[in-house]
C-alpha cells in the first residue's frame, strides 16, 4: 500500500489532535495509519492520518492482486496462443512459399544450364517443351532478348515491375484466360543481356493460405475469449477463497474478536492461511480476555478498598460528634472527614474516566453500536447544559438540522459532547455564548479511511487553546497553563478523542474567532458511521 499522506488541517490554526496520550494502551497503536519511511515522525499539527489517496476505478482494479494474477494468466495464455499460431503459420503457409521459391530457383537453374549448353534457341525450345506438357497451366516463362523481344514464354510482355535489372523476386497479378490470378515470379540474368523469367500461378496456394489464416484467427479469437474467461474465473476463485479471511480481518479490525475464518477443508494454501489467522486470533482473544480479566480485577481491587475507606469515613462522620470533646472540635473533625470523602470521590471520578477512555479505545464497545439520530440527543444535551450555561451567566445557542443519522454508541457520544459543553461553559466568560451545532457530512474520507458522516461542533468564547498545546490537548491529564486553576481532571478531551477514534473519526480543535481576543475554542467532533 501507498503511505497515507497526513491530512491538511482545514485552517492554519486548526489542529487535529493525535491519537494516544501519555501511555497509549496496546490497542491504541493498532489503527494508526501506516506512514511512509520518508515522512517525518508524527509531530505537531498535522497528525490526523490522511485519507487514502483518491483513485480511479482502473487503479483500484490494478490494486487487486486477484486481478493482476488473472491479467498475468491471460497474457501468458495469449502469448502462447500467438507463438503457437506463428509456428503453425511458418510450418504451413511459409512452407508453401518456400516450396514455390525452391521450384522456381531449380527451374531457372536448369534453363540457365540449358542456355549454356544449347544457346538461346535451346533454352527457348526447352521453355516451349515445358509449357507444352504443363497440363495444370501453372507455369509462366519469359525469355527476353537484349532488345526486349520475346524469344519464348507465355506472357504478352515483360512485367514492368521486373524491368529493373536488380529485381529478382516478385509477386504480381496476371490475367490468365481472362481471369485475374496471382503469380510468383523469379528473374535471372543470362549472358549477353538476355533475361529469363520463371513463374508459377499461386492462386490456389493463396486461397489455401487465406483459409489457413482465417482458421488461425478464429482459433486465436476463441482462445483469447477462453483466456479472458479463465482470467475471470481465476480472479473470482481467488476472491472467493480470500473473502473469508478478508471479512474476518475486517470484523476483527472493527472490534469483533469472535469472528473466525471459515475453512473449506481442502487443506490448501488458503486453508493454511485461514488456520494460521485463526490460531493468531485465538491467541489474541486469550490475551484480550486476560487483559479484560486484569482490568476487571484492577477495577475490583481498587474500588473495593476505596469503598471500604469511604464506608469507614461515612461511619466516622455519623459518630464524629460523640468522640469530640467540644462542638468546635466536632465541627473541625466533620469538615476533615467530609474533605476526605470528597477527595476519595475525586479519585473515583478520575478512575472512572480512565476506565471509560480505556473502554472506548479498546474498541470493545463497537459491538454496542446502534443506529441513532444525533439531533434529539444533542437537543436534549443542549437543554440540559443550557441550564448550567444560564447559571454561569452565559447563553447556549444551538444550530441543529432536522436529522443527523449515525451508527454509534449513544452513551459514549453523549458523554463526549457533554464533556465539550462542560468545558465550553467552564472556560467561557460570563455573558458569553456557547454554540452547539451539528451537520451531516457528505461522506468525506476520515483518518481511518472510513467516510465521515456527521460533525458536532462546540464553540465558546473562552481563552481557547494555544496552537502549540492543541496537539497535546487530547493527552491524558494534559492541562494548558491557562486552565490550571479550573477544576477538572484533565481527562475530558481525552475521552472525546477516544470516542472520536472509536467512531473512526477525529477531533479538530481550532480558534472559534480567529484574530479576536480571546480567540475562543471551536471543537469539531467528526464521526464516521458504524
Amino acid at each position: 500500500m501507498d503511505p497515507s499522506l497526513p491530512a491538511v488541517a482545514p485552517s492554519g490554526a486548526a489542529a487535529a489532535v493525535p491519537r494516544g496520550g501519555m501511555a497509549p494502551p496496546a490497542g491504541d497503536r493498532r489503527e494508526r495509519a501506516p506512514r511512509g519511511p520518508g515522512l517525518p515522525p508524527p509531530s505537531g499539527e498535522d497528525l490526523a492520518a490522511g485519507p487514502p489517496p483518491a483513485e480511479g476505478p482502473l487503479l483500484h482494479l490494478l490494486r487487486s492482486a486477484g486481478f493482476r494474477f488473472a491479467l498475468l494468466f491471460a497474457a501468458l495464455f495469449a502469448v502462447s496462443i500467438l507463438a503457437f499460431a506463428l509456428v503453425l503459420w511458418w510450418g504451413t503457409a511459409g512452407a508453401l512459399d518456400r516450396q514455390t521459391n525452391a521450384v522456381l530457383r531449380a527451374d531457372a537453374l536448369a534453363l540457365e544450364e540449358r542456355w549454356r549448353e544449347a544457346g538461346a534457341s535451346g533454352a527457348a525450345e526447352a521453355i516451349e517443351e515445358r509449357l507444352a506438357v504443363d497440363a495444370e497451366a501453372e507455369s509462366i516463362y519469359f525469355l527476353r532478348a537484349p532488345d526486349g523481344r520475346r524469344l519464348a514464354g507465355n506472357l504478352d510482355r515483360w512485367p514492368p515491375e521486373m524491368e529493373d535489372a536488380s529485381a529478382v523476386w516478385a509477386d504480381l497479378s496476371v490475367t490468365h484466360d481472362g481471369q485475374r490470378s496471382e503469380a510468383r515470379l523469379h528473374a535471372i540474368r543470362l549472358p549477353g543481356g538476355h533475361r529469363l523469367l520463371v513463374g508459377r500461378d499461386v492462386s490456389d496456394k493463396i486461397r489455401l493460405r487465406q483459409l489457413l489464416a482465417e482458421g488461425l484467427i478464429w482459433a486465436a479469437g476463441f482462445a483469447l475469449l477462453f483466456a479472458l474467461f479463465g482470467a475471470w474465473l481465476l480472479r473470482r476463485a481467488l476472491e472467493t477463497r480470500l473473502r473469508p479471511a478478508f471479512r474476518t480481518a475486517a470484523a476483527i479490525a472493527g472490534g469483533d474478536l469472535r469472528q473466525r475464518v471459515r475453512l473449506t477443508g481442502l487443506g490448501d494454501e488458503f486453508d493454511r492461511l485461514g488456520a494460521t489467522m485463526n490460531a493468531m486470533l485465538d491467541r489474541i482473544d486469550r490475551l484480550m480476555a486476560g487483559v479484560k480479566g486484569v482490568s476487571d480485577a484492577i477495577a475490583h481491587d481498587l474500588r473495593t478498598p476505596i469503598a471500604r475507606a469511604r464506608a469507614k469515613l461515612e461511619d466516622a462522620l455519623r459518630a464524629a460528634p460523640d468522640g469530640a470533646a467540644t462542638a468546635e472540635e466536632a465541627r473541625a473533625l466533620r469538615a476533615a472527614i467530609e474533605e476526605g470523602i470528597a477527595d476519595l470521590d475525586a479519585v473515583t471520578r478520575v478512575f472512572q474516566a480512565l476506565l471509560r477512555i480505556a473502554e472506548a479505545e479498546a474498541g470493545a464497545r463497537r459491538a454496542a453500536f446502534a443506529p441513532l439520530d444525533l439531533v434529539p440527543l444533542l437537543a436534549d444535551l443542549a437543554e440540559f447544559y443550557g441550564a448550567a450555561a444560564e447559571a454561569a451567566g452565559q447563553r447556549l445557542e444551538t444550530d441543529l438540522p432536522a436529522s443527523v443519522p449515525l451508527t454509534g454508541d449513544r452513551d459514549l457520544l453523549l458523554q463526549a459532547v457533554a464533556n465539550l459543553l462542560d468545558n465550553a461553559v467552564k472556560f467561557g466568560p460570563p455573558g458569553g455564548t456557547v454554540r452547539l451545532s451539528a451537520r451531516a457530512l457528505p461522506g468525506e474520507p476520515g483518518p481511518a479511511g472510513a467516510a465521515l458522516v456527521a460533525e458536532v461542533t462546540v464553540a465558546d468564547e473562552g481563552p481557547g487553546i494555544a496552537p502549540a498545546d492543541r496537539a497535546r490537548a487530547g493527552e491524558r491529564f494534559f492541562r494548558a497553563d491557562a486552565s490550571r486553576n479550573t477544576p477538572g481532571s484533565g481527562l475530558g478531551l481525552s475521552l472525546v478523542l477516544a470516542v472520536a477514534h472509536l467512531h473512526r473519526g477525529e477531533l479538530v480543535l481550532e480558534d472559534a474567532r480567529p484574530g479576536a481576543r480571546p480567540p475562543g475554542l471551536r471543537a469539531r467532533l467528526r464521526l464516521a458511521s458504524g
Partner: protein
Amino acid sequence: MRVLAAVLLCLAPALPAAAAGEEAPVRVTSGTPEYCGALAARFAAVRRAAPPDARALAAEGTRLCGRGHVRTGVAKLRRAIRLAAPEPE
C-alpha cells in the same frame, strides 16, 4: 472478430494483392487459340510415336479448342504431349 481477421489478413506477409499496378496486368498468352494451334503442331511432330489414348486426347483437345473451350483444349493437348513423350529430356 471479422474486423480482427481482416486486419490480420492485411498484415499477413507476401500477399500479392498490393503488387497489382494501375496499368492492365501482364497477360498469360498460353490460353489463346493460337497456342492451341502451336500445341497441335507440336503433337503432330510426335504423333507417330504416341500411344493411341494420347492421340485421342490430342484430337479431343483440338476439337475443344475449335469450339472455343481453349482452356480445357490446351490442357488436353498438353496431357497428350506428355503421354507421347514420357521422358522429356
